[in-house]
């Protein structure tokens, strides 16, 4: 199928006098992390297939400031936020979609107080909407009968009460959705949030991602689905620690759909 990704930037569209419907906020992980880049591309493929009029900021995008804020550096966070808001307001951005729950939470909840008011949706919500409006259809053949468990990202679930969109999509794949011991509002963190991604964990008797992976393995899944690039990394590492990488795949919801659609 078409390997060519169509990735218009806001600057290009602006130069051509156009305004996209939605800004795809790629995020730092989605831009730079090798694993997360695959999620970004999978989502772009779906956007291309559904002929969505979107754009990315590209080199004009910068970290939302989430890790700085959660680390306690409010200064750095607000500098980042104000800079990003200036860029987005200059492009008159109205709607934003992102595959990163941390970017999602920060732009949705913390930018309005600093002058950035946008409609922000997580990519699972966006995809669910595409499905419901008939812009994409899912042939879940590949995943039929597969056991898929969904790991709730804290910043999507507990922080913003988005629990059903990713689950609805998994069900649409004709897959068997199995829930872990801790799920939805009682979901267990992957261990990466609150800027933990960038530091060694404090001393304890286990790493959090291993604990979470053990919960996932308990339900004997074929696939652990995630909706966050950081959860994805942590769960992938956890599965490797448990020597299960040949039997359990860790995939983002966007990748599941792109795969099902053979994009």
């Amino acid at each position, binding site marked *: 199928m078409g390997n060519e*990704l169509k*990735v218009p930037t806001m600057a290009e569209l602006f130069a051509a006098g156009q305004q996209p419907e939605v800004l795809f906020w790629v995020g*730092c992980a*989605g*831009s*730079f992390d090798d694993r997360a*880049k695959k999620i970004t591309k999978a989502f*772009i493929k779906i956007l291309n297939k559904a002929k969505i009029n979107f754009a*990315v900021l*590209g*080199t004009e*995008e*910068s*970290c939302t*400031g989430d890790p*700085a*804020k*959660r*680390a*306690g*550096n*409010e*200064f750095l966070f*607000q*500098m*980042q936020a*104000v800079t990003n808001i200036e860029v987005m307001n200059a492009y008159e951005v109205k709607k934003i979609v992102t595959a990163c729950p941390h970017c999602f*939470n920060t732009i949705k*909840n*913390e930018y309005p107080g*600093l002058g950035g008011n946008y409609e922000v949706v997580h990519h699972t919500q966006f995809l669910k909407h595409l499905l419901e409006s008939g812009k994409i259809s899912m042939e879940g053949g590949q995943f039929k009968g597969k056991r898929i468990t969904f790991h709730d990202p*804290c*910043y999507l679930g*507990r*922080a*913003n*009460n988005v629990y059903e969109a990713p689950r609805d999509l998994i069900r649409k794949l004709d897959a068997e959705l199995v829930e872990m011991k801790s799920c939805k*509002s*009682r*979901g*267990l*963190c992957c*261990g*990466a*949030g*609150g*800027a933990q*991604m*960038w*530091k*060694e*964990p*404090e*001393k*304890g*008797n286990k790493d*959090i991602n*291993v*604990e*979470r992976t053990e919960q996932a393995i308990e339900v004997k899944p074929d696939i652990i689905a995630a909706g966050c690039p950081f959860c994805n990394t942590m769960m992938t590492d956890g599965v490797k620690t448990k020597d299960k990488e040949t039997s359990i795949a860790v995939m983002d919801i966007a990748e599941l759909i792109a795969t099902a659609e053979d994009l």
Partner: protein
Amino acid sequence: MDYIPNILFAILLIAGIAFFAKNVKKLIRNIKLGKPVDTSDHTSQRWRNMARIALGQTKMVVRPIPGILHIIVYVGFIIINIEVLEIVLDGLLGTHRIFSFLGGFYSFLIASFEILALLVIVAVFLFWVRRNIIKLKRFLNPEMAGWPKKDGNLILYIEFVLMVLFLTMNAADYQLQQMDVAHYTKAGAFPVSQFIAPLFQEMSISSIIVLERTAWWLHITGILMFLNYLYYSKHLHILLAFPNTYFGKVRPKGQFNNLDSVTKEVKLMMDPTADPFAAPDENAAPPEKFGASDVMDLEWVQLLNAYTCTECGRCTSECPANLTGKKLSPRKIMMDTRDRLEEVGKNMDANKGVFVPDGKQLLGDYISHEELWACTTCNACVEACPVSIDPLSIIMDMRQYLVMEQSAAPSDLNNMMGNIENNGAPWPFNQMDRLNWSKES
């Protein structure tokens, strides 16, 4: 002479309530040491939260066994206050069962109090078993050693004794009613204590009267003592759960405060018309401290949170850091905050209402850096709390102090922040390479 009991009762009642009021005043003063915070927003949402979470106990039943047992004790407590009102009126006026004119409804009330009292005894016993025999893990965390453990058990013992006294009082009364003793008019229905009453059959009328009076006096004295015990105990939650759920967070859990003091600075920095060489205003207030290192730096709602915490440990048992053996325990954060606040309050009491620096603070002396940095900000503790306490907000405020006032972040995090500052990403990649992925196959 006939009035002596009434006078004694009035003195007891006034003393009990006055002492309690004095402690409540202290409690309010301590909470007000916190920074102001606007809680005038989302009024209807706040009332809804209070009705649902505190009154309706919705979060208690997330764990069904302690949840249902708790509801029994809670309903017992609320309803039995009608009985306490009658006891107080009887005590002051020298009457007996003053509400008995309600007739059938009165019988229904007394009967339901009795059944509830029995259920409370059963619930309290099961709670005691959970704490002392089954030894649930969350009651054995390091922060639960010593007073917190004793406090937890004491509350159960007091509630047990109060209920036993209540039933004894009723049983003796019932027996006296059966014997047509003057003053003990036939009133009420006694579905539980009627089975205790036969024990007193052999006793003389005067002995039963002594028994009834003793149980009556001990019961009301016990209640007044329990009221005054609250201030020194985690049991304070029975009062503070209501305001606490009202003032609790109404924004999405992921939304953290944007510090206004920082916004001002950032706006100034980004303002091209600002004069970088302008002399600071001489009358300007000293710059605000960023984040929190002691209880006075916290907002008053956070201090209310600390007094409301009943040390149930549901937060800690859901905390991913704690689950994996790290030092962080959200419950300990709340207990430390309250202990330090009490210490500050006592300091003020000893120094004519002024706080004299004691060389200690919440950060370091109570809460360690290691605990603070172990938090993943996942909000599991906030979600788990049955009374809307937000330990995460205290952790975040202290991290802000560590980073912005003391530059004391772990070095890995300093690298990450340096990268964001220089490259606009937490990793050392150039912002100009941000779109490279679109060209990679």
